[in-house]
């Protein structure tokens, strides 16, 4: 693994949902974010820890 502290387990992503909408999340490996398109929120992954807190999420524009 190139970045042992960074990447998160892809298996985890199959099960993880947005805490606001309970909808799916997309993993943005470059920005280290989990994107909930339905909620318009990007949850940060800091040092490999997904921070699933709406208060900590970045608002993103719906596309």
């Amino acid at each position: 693994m190139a970045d042992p502290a960074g990447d998160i387990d892809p298996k985890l992503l199959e099960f993880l949902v947005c805490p606001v909408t309970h909808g799916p999340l997309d993993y943005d490996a470059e920005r280290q974010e989990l994107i909930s398109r339905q909620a318009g929120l990007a949850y940060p992954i800091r040092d490999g820890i997904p921070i699933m807190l709406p208060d900590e999420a970045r608002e993103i524009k719906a596309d």
Partner: protein
Amino acid sequence: MTESPAHEDEYTDELIEFLESLWGWGFLSPGGPEEVARVLEGIDLSGKRVLDIGCGSGGIALSLARDHGAGAVVGIDVEGPVVRKAKARAAELGLAARVDFQQVAPGPLPFEAESFDIVFSKDSMIHIPDKEDLFADIFRVLKPGGRIAASDWMIAHDDAPSPAMKHYLEMEGLSFGMASPDRYRRAMKSAGFHNVHLVNRNAWYVGIAREELAQLKGPLYEKAAAASSPATVDHNIGTWTAMLSVLETGEHCPHHLHGLKPAG
């Protein structure tokens, strides 16, 4: 969407250091890996996908992978400092590929239905006041045939706490939502669990707590004070004294609990 109030960290670095000096590396509750094994008695974790609710500083989630052969463990907690500690420890032990940690908001578990074979929790559900919602949500994220195995701090009845119990709870100063074994049992059954089974661990913990208090007042004092601070240890000697009195009356009664989500 309902906004939950922002959660403030209650398990500060100082409290974490104090508790770990008493309970061991990565443990914020008593009994060590042996008590974890007793909670899991009769349950085979090998290759299983496990959720640890209230993972704290990670010792248990890591033990589930290392000592019990769990295939994948996800530890969740509402507090940042403990989760960061847990994550660093997974890397230290070379278990980062099998054990993940996440910081979550209080409220529904952020997982798909039927995500886990086993839901584990040790002495953490006390912090979640709505037991009915909690067990309904645990039931949801379990696969059919999946099990919950947990332990938690309980109060023997659903009436107002006795003055001694109130005093103890004030000493703890943590946001506890204590409930009775009866309420847990009802909440688990109404969530749909079968084979609901609770075991009172009061007698075990009275003995342990007496020993812990003697240690804190004696041989462990210096070490615990160095890890946290003398004021923290002094305060906790008061907390332990208050706790022991309600353990001895049986009003404070840790329990193990088990339940099965029926297959199909």
